[in-house]
C-alpha cells in the first residue's frame, strides 16, 4: 500500500516537472507575442522582409539580421561539423587510449570559456589575423566570386562564422564522441570480419549507425550558434546590411537585441526588438523541426538500404 502511494506521488511529481516546461514555453511565447504586438500590427509581414533599421524615424525591418544570423551560423557549421566529426572519430576509433581522456578534457574545457572572453580574443587576435592573412589571399585569388569582394576590415561575416565555429566545436565534438562510443562493438567486428579496412569500417558501419545522433549534435551546435550574442557582436562589425561578400560586416538578431535593448525608450522600438526575439524563437523552432524531419528521412533510407 505504502509503496504504491510513493510511486504515485513520484509519478505526479515528475509529471508536474515535465508539464512546467510546457507551461514555461507557453508563457514565454505569450509574453513575447504580447510585447511585440505593437510592432506586429504596425509593420505586419513587412517586418520580416524590410531591410531598413532606423530607430530615429522608427522604421524597422529585420531582414539583414535574419540573414546575418542564418549565414553566420551556416559558416560556423561548414567549418565546425567536419572538424567535430573528425575529432569524434579520432577519439573513439583511432586515438591511443592514453590520449582519449586528456583530449576530451581539453575539448570540454573549451566549452567552459565564457563567450565574452572568446569575443575579446576575436577582436584582438582573430580579426586582425583574418584581415592580414586570410582575407587577402581569398580576395586575390577568388576575388572574381562575389563571395570574396569588397573592403576587408577584419570584422566580417567570415570572422563571425569562425568565432561561432570555435564556440560550437566543443559541444558538437563531445556529443559526437559519446554517440560514436555508443556504437556496439558487434558493428565494428562484423565489418572487420568481412575484410573491411579501418576507413571502410568507419564509413560503412559506424557513421551510418551513429548518423542520427551526430545529427542531433549538429543541431545542438546550430542552436548555440543561432543564439550566440556576445562573442559574435564583437567581431561581426554590427552593420545591418545584406551583402553577398562574406568579407563584409554584418549583424545578427541576438546581437541587435543585446546592443539596443537597454537604451530603447519608445514603445514601438522596444516592441520591434522583442519581435526580433520572437523571430529568433520561430527560426529556432523551424530549424529544429526541419532537422528532425531530415533525420527521420535519412534513418529510414539507411534502414531500407
Amino acid at each position: 500500500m505504502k509503496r504504491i502511494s510513493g510511486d504515485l506521488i513520484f509519478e505526479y511529481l515528475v509529471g508536474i516537472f515535465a508539464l512546467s516546461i510546457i507551461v514555461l514555453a507557453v508563457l514565454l511565447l505569450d509574453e513575447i507575442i504580447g510585447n511585440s504586438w505593437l510592432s506586429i500590427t504596425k509593420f505586419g509581414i513587412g517586418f520580416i522582409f524590410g531591410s531598413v533599421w532606423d530607430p530615429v524615424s522608427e522604421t524597422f525591418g529585420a531582414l539583414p539580421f535574419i540573414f546575418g544570423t542564418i549565414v553566420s551560423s551556416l559558416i560556423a557549421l561548414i567549418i565546425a561539423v567536419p572538424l567535430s566529426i573528425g575529432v569524434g572519430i579520432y577519439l573513439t576509433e583511432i586515438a591511443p587510449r592514453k590520449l582519449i581522456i586528456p583530449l576530451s578534457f581539453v575539448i570540454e574545457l573549451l566549452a567552459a570559456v565564457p563567450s565574452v572572453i572568446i569575443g575579446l580574443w576575436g577582436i584582438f587576435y582573430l580579426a586582425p589575423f583574418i584581415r592580414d592573412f586570410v582575407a587577402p589571399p581569398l580576395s586575390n585569388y577568388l576575388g572574381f566570386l562575389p563571395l570574396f569582394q569588397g573592403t576587408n576590415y577584419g570584422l566580417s561575416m567570415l570572422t563571425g562564422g569562425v568565432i561561432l565555429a570555435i564556440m560550437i566545436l566543443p559541444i558538437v565534438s563531445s556529443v559526437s564522441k559519446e554517440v560514436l562510443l555508443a556504437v556496439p562493438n558487434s558493428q565494428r567486428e562484423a565489418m572487420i570480419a568481412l575484410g573491411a579496412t579501418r576507413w571502410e569500417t568507419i564509413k560503412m558501419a559506424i557513421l551510418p549507425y551513429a548518423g542520427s545522433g551526430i545529427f542531433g549534435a549538429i543541431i545542438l551546435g546550430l542552436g548555440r550558434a543561432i543564439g550566440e550574442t556576445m562573442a559574435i557582436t564583437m567581431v561581426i562589425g554590427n552593420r545591418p546590411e545584406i551583402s553577398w561578400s562574406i568579407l563584409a560586416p554584418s549583424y545578427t538578431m541576438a546581437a541587435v537585441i543585446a546592443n539596443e535593448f537597454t537604451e530603447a525608450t519608445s514603445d514601438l522600438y522596444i516592441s520591434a526588438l522583442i519581435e526580433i526575439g520572437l523571430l529568433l524563437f520561430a527560426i529556432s523552432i523551424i530549424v529544429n523541426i526541419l532537422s528532425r524531419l531530415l533525420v527521420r528521412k535519412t534513418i529510414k533510407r539507411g534502414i531500407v538500404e
Partner: protein
Amino acid sequence: MKINNFGLLAIIFIIIAGVLFFTYFGQTGGNKDKQIVLNGAGATFPYPLISKWTFEYGKIKPNVQINYQSIGSGGGIRQIMAKTVDFGASDAPLTKQEFQEIEGILHIPITIGAVVIAYNLPGIENKLYLSGDVIADIYLGKITRWDDPKISSLNPGIKLPSRDIIVTHRSDGSGTTYIFTEYLSSVSDEWAEKVGKGKSVNWPVGLGGKGNEGVAGLITQNPHSIGYVELAYAKLQNIKYASIKNKAGKFTEPSVETIANSANTVLPKGDKSWSDVSIVNAEVENSYPIASFSYVLVYKNQNDRTKGKSIAEFLWWAVHDGQDYSSELLYVPLPKEVITINEETIKLINYGGEKLITEK
C-alpha cells in the same frame, strides 16, 4: 507518530512566533534612526560618478543608503515612469512626448559629458584638426579617403596617407551616440535630414563596436580608422583625439574649461521640457562643441515625506559638494549658472505642497 506531529507543530509555532516578535520589535526599535533606502536606475555614463557620490554621501548620512543600477537610460526612464525607482538618470532629456506622459517630472543636470573624435593614423605625430562638416561628411560616406582635400586643407602641416578611412561607431544604444549625432545634426543639414539624432541611428557607413571599449578596440586594431568615444575613456586609454573647430571658428581641445563653456547657454526651468536643450556646437568662443548634460529625473510631488526629503537633500548635496568629485573621475563639474537653476528645481520637490528642502 503523534508525538512527531506534535513536535513539528511546536517547531512551526515557535518559528512563526519568533518571526512576528522580531518583525514587531525590529520595526519599533528601528524607528529612531531608520535606514532610508533610495533606489535609482538609468544611464551608464554617470555611473562611476553616482557610485562615488553614494559612497561619500554614506559617510555624511549613514542612515541613507542609495542604490543605483546602471541599466541604461531607456530602462531608467521606464522605471521612473512605473515609479519602481525613486530617481532615474538619462543621458538625453525626455522627448516632448515622454515629458507629457510623465506628469510632474523634473530634469536635474548632474554632470557634463564630452565626446572626442579618436583616430588611428600610424606615423603621424601631429594633432589632427577637424571641423564639423568634415566629420559629418566622413560619417555620411562622402569623404572616404584620408588625403581628401577637405581634410588636408584643415591640416596643412601633415602629409595624410592615401588610404580609405575606416569609420567606426557604437553598435549599442548609448548616450555617447546621442551626443555625437546631436552634434552632427547641428552642423550638417544633410545629416539631420538623412540620419538624425538618437541613441541608435541608421548609420550610412561604418563598423559598429559594442561600448566605448568596443569602439576603442576597433580604432586601435585598425590603422586609418576614426571613431568617437567618451572623453574620460579616451584619456584613460591614451587614445589620440582630434582638435575640433567650434561654431566661433576656433579649434578647441576638450577640457574642463572648454566643455563647461559649452554649457553657458539659456536653459529652461527644471519642471519644463528640456527636449530642446542642446549644448553641442555652442556659439561661445572657447568652447568644445561635442558635449551634453547627463540628467537625473525625479518627481516633483513625493508620496513619502522622509524619502522625498532624503532625495531632495541628496540631490542638493550632489549638485554642490558632489561636484568636487567630478574632476578626479574626469567628469566636468557644472557651471554656476546651471547649479543656480538646479537649486530652484530641487526646491520644487514637495510632499503635499510642503517644501522638503529649507536651505537658503
